[in-house]
């Protein structure tokens, strides 16, 4: 049987929002391919926000596992554990925040499924019992929040050490945001009783939009990890410029190069210098000093210069090298040392160059 295309469906909110999602992903991918200077974090946050809005818009059923109270309570305990971990991470270990935050996002998605997002649903979409349950969840949640905020106020009043901890801990503010946004749902998941009769879950219709939203969510969760791993495997892109620079009575060359490392999370390590030679020795005119070792341009990576050296060897060769350690903030321990080396012989021959 042939199904006829209905043009009416093109005007529905589902289609329009889905189309917007597709356009955004296409644009995002296009920009990934074309623009190196894009503010990735902004784009990533924008895409994530739209995904979250779409995700909340999709209907959900808890399914067999998450409908059980022990499973829901285990999920809430896991979330509480992640919040404690986030609050305990010392300042300066930025990389350690990412995985717990990603785990918390996954837990929030599961929490939404487990509670069918009743706690934040519009009034018209909840029945009397659900209304009562979520009202109680907000009441209990508000009191728990009050205890937490009083604890924070106690930390503020306690001493300058606890005050400094409040000022410097990024994790505690993530926990505050989590509690403000999800605490009623957590209480609801904790308190909601098991279904009296084994429910027969009607499976939510798997539409292309549903698939697209979950695909986008998976992509957004995996992107930081993939981009971090790409730092290790993607070969660097090198662009070089060498041209003569006329100086009185001696040969000089301008040496310019950029080495771009990584994918999405990227760093561009430049060298821009002028080198001259007399036949007896080569020497730096400009661009090979300590300040030139810390000029990495990064997009989402943390860069640190670990070595910077310039010397003229016994045979008159000018040797300049610096190494930059690039670290991903998304995954701990993923990093790469990238050396940039230039060696020019006393006759002006390039012995080493990116």
């Amino acid at each position, binding site marked *: 049987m042939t199904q006829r295309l209905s043009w009416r469906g093109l005007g529905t909110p589902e289609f329009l929002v889905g189309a917007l999602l597709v356009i955004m992903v296409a644009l995002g991918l296009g920009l990934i391919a074309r623009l190196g200077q894009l503010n990735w974090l902004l784009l990533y946050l924008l895409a994530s926000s739209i995904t979250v809005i779409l995700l909340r818009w999709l209907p959900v059923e808890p399914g067999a596992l998450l409908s059980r109270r022990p499973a829901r309570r285990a999920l809430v305990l896991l979330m509480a554990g992640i919040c404690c971990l986030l609050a305990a991470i010392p300042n300066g270990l930025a990389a350690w925040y990412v995985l717990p935050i990603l785990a918390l996002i996954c837990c929030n998605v599961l929490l939404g499924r487990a509670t069918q997002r009743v706690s934040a649903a519009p009034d018209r979409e909840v029945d009397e019992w659900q*209304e*009562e349950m*979520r*009202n*109680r969840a*907000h*009441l209990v*949640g*508000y*009191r728990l*929040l*009050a205890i937490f*905020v*009083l604890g924070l*106020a106690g930390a*503020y*009043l306690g001493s*300058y050490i606890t*005050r*400094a901890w*409040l*000022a*410097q801990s990024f994790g505690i503010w993530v926990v*505050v945001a989590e509690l*403000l*946004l999800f*605490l*009623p749902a957590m209480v609801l998941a904790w308190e909601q009783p098991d279904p009296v009769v084994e429910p027969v879950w009607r499976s939510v219709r798997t539409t292309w939009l549903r698939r697209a939203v979950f695909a986008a969510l998976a992509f957004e969760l995996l992107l930081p990890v993939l981009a971090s791993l790409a730092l290790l495997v993607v070969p660097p892109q090198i662009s070089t410029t060498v041209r003569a620079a006329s100086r009185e009575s001696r040969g000089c060359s301008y040496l310019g190069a950029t080495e771009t490392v990584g994918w999405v999370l990227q760093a561009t390590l430049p060298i821009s210098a002028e080198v001259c030679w007399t036949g007896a020795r080569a020497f730096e005119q400009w661009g090979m000093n300590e300040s030139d070792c810390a000029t990495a341009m990064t997009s989402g990576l943390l860069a640190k210069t670990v070595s910077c050296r310039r010397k003229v060897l016994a045979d008159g060769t000018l040797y300049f090298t610096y190494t930059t350690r690039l670290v991903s903030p998304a995954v701990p321990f993923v990093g790469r040392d990238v050396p940039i080396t230039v060696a020019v012989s006393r006759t002006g021959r390039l012995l080493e160059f990116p």
Partner: protein
Amino acid sequence: MKAGFAGTPAWRREGRGARRLLVVLLALAWGAIASPVPVSLDGWGPILVAGCLGIFLILGHMTGWLASPFRRDGDEIVLALRGLAYRRAFRLFLLGILLLVPMLVVGASQGGTTIAWEVPDPLGARAVAALLILLVVLPTAVMAWIGPSGHFAGGLPAKGAPVGAVTAGLSALVSVLIVAWLVGLQALPVSVASKVTIPDPQDAFSPGTCGAFAAVSQLDQGFGPSLVLLAQVCWNGRSVWLVNDPGGPSPNPSWRGFSNALPQFCLRSTDRSDFGVLADQQCRVWVDSSGSIHVVMWAEAGSGLPGMGTRWLQLNLVVARSGRVLSFD
């Protein structure tokens, strides 16, 4: 059992208009505490806080404290109202925090502070007070706002303490807090925090090494007047001087005209007198015979209420010409 409304005037029991007016006043008083403008409340903080708590007590009494933890039961309508009040209060608390964030940012920029100058104080006593007031008053304020006219008039059947007793108990608690605050101003030890940043990241021109010195001396852990010392001191081994001090060397005399743009020592606007008053503030700078610079700042601190005692707050900074910090407390 009637819940203790006997003797309450009719306008307080029945009028939603009066309740809403009080809620608006409460919101205005809270806004004054949380707002970054003016930078300093000049001692009006305790009065605004007391005003908020006073309105909260009146609203609580008018609504029979139905949104408080002291009353747990009620008829179906009361339960629905209480649930709705807490649900809205939760969202309004989130909104309040979202409002506080830009206020903190604006406040920090108006105060002219930078990372080099900040003594660890992420929120400030004013924001903490605003946060706590919000937390305490919101359910009751929402209940007062959404409760229909005449709804609380009949003395709703509810278990728990009678309304009058709750009001009296909470009024006593607020009074105790005010007394504790006043006693704390007189008796609690002065807390001092300092931060030294060497080299001073704001300095690019001085003919020597410079450091940024920031200290704050507080009463009542910040819920009292705070004396703040911000100073830029430079040294070159032979002498030590204060930036913006006319006696100190300058790399370029033409820059002297622009020196007011830099953070200045003894700047009145850096004081935080939200919860209390600083009076008779003075500062003095001198170089002793060994070449060390002494920077001293002091002021008289009190609650601002007539008849209450005052205390002296003092901050000292001594830096040798070698750059060694001999004293900073």
